[in-house]
């Protein structure tokens, strides 16, 4: 019955206080299964901290996190990833001195198991190659399989990162600014890619590019100074007086 629950991820009263500074304050967040949910807000609003808390890269001061109805607040980051809640990072996180193929294979390898086998040849990983190539093609990197990841241009590194994440076939993806620092042509490609991969999974993303947010998101949560300011679809949120003030406030003074 678990799978039919309406919400895949739920944060209750999530709070993180660093010394004398509350980065995230009593955030309640519900992510509906199968949607693309965007987290937006000005710089320093606590969006990335939220991501770090949800995946336990940072331990919350208090609050609860439920994933598929199970409390995961005390799980290690790697265990959370193994449950199917996989995150990306603000700066691209590929393995630079490995090839594109190896980068994707490392995701497939984790799912298959046998990663402690130090006595086996890496040739045993070749059965994963065809699946890896499929994923590489899917993100538009076909032909680059044997190129070192470090040599890829920035936009393509992000695509590779998504391919590696997809190799885990996660139920839910957390994307931290997937289009940040990208030229315009790449933005539309990544945005199309996100739409494609979100077809049968849930996506929660932090994003600054509002046209991407408007185009992709089913639900938008706006954060400011560690707190939730507003929530709803793009039309609702963009009409919200608090949101307009948060984004444009300084201009009107």
């Amino acid at each position: 019955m678990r799978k039919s629950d309406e919400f895949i991820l739920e944060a209750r009263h999530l709070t993180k206080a660093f010394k004398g500074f509350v980065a995230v304050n009593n955030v309640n967040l519900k992510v509906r299964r199968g949607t693309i949910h965007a987290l937006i807000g000005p710089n320093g609003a606590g969006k990335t901290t939220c991501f770090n808390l949800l995946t336990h890269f940072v331990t919350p001061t208090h609050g609860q996190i439920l994933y598929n109805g199970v409390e995961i607040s005390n799980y290690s980051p790697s265990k959370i990833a193994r449950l199917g809640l996989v995150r990306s990072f603000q700066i691209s996180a590929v393995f630079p001195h490995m090839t594109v193929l190896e980068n994707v294979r490392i995701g497939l390898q984790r799912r298959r198991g046998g990663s402690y086998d130090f006595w086996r040849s890496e040739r045993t990983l070749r059965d994963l190659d065809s699946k890896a190539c499929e994923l590489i093609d899917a993100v538009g990197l076909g032909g680059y399989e044997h190129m070192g990841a470090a040599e890829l241009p920035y936009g393509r590194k992000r695509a590779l990162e998504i391919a590696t994440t997809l190799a885990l076939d996660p139920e839910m993806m957390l994307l931290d600014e997937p289009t940040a620092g990208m030229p315009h042509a790449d933005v539309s490609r990544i945005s199309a890619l996100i739409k494609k991969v979100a077809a049968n999974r849930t996506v929660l993303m932090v994003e600054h590019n509002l046209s991407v947010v408007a185009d992709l998101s089913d639900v938008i949560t706006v954060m400011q100074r560690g707190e939730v300011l507003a929530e709803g679809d793009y039309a609702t949120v963009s009409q919200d007086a608090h949101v307009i003030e948060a984004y444009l406030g300084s201009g009107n003074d």
Partner: protein
Amino acid sequence: MIPAPDRIFYAPASSVEIRHQGVAFIFMVAVFAIAPFVVYPLFPMKVMCFALFACAFNLLLGYGGLMSFGHAMFLGTAGYTSAHAAKVWGVPPEVALLLGTSAAALLGLVVGAIAIRRQGIYFAMITLAFAQMMYFFYLQTPFTYGEDGIQTVPRGHLFGLVDLSVPMAVYFVVLLIFIGGFLIIYRVIHSPFGQVLKTIRENEVRAISLGYDTNRYKLLAFVLSASLAGLAGATKMLVFGLASLTDVHLAMSAEVVLMTLLGGLGTIFGPVVGALIIVAMENYFAQFGPWVTVAQGSIFIGCVLAFRRGVVGEIAHRLKMSL
């Protein structure tokens, strides 16, 4: 942007790489097989022991990104254990080697379990602290005979058959152990586990976010490295019939770092070349006394400043291959 992105053919590096490495491997084996007929056999045997030690260290630092500053404790622990077993308990050499290696593995498990909880310089400092504690232990405990060490350990008969007091017999046994250890390390690097180890070196946080419990992988790497360092230590004891404080001293931990960096960190053959250079300097320039250390230091500084990839790393880079 890269021009014409669709279906450029990039040759899979691996098969070409394997061919180059195969040639280099055969060359290395040939050199060590001919060496005892050209030079005094004790020298190449010493080189092989240190080469295995450096390769084990390189597995941890070069492929796992873990800097241990106390690897001498594994070399020395295996040396003392095997020496005591062979001399006092009178076990055959194969059992002595096995006991020495196991002792190093066990110590690796304990030290590793604690050290991997911290990263970078703190990791290195924990290994250093343990190494100093082990040094003090071996200095004080009676079975090691303090400053004298365990001397005149009999080499015995391997599997009751091969008389290791025959110089050529012991030489080729050492060569087999070295080749075996070298191939084990090669396999570990080129295994599914080795792939994960590389991801930890490249970007540990990302490896965690993919669901890898990186601490367990680091611990396994640490234990493997400690065991192989132990195998080197036990073999060295067998060659010289001696286990002494030199092998557990901080200077030895530093020397293995020097060998690895000089030869080429993260290269397959680098540590072997590094060990050859350092041992050769110690052997053939021994009459210059402390000047050897000065020369080693200068070479090290020159290496770090001028060719940071190390000897093999630099050659591999020039020839655009992986060695």
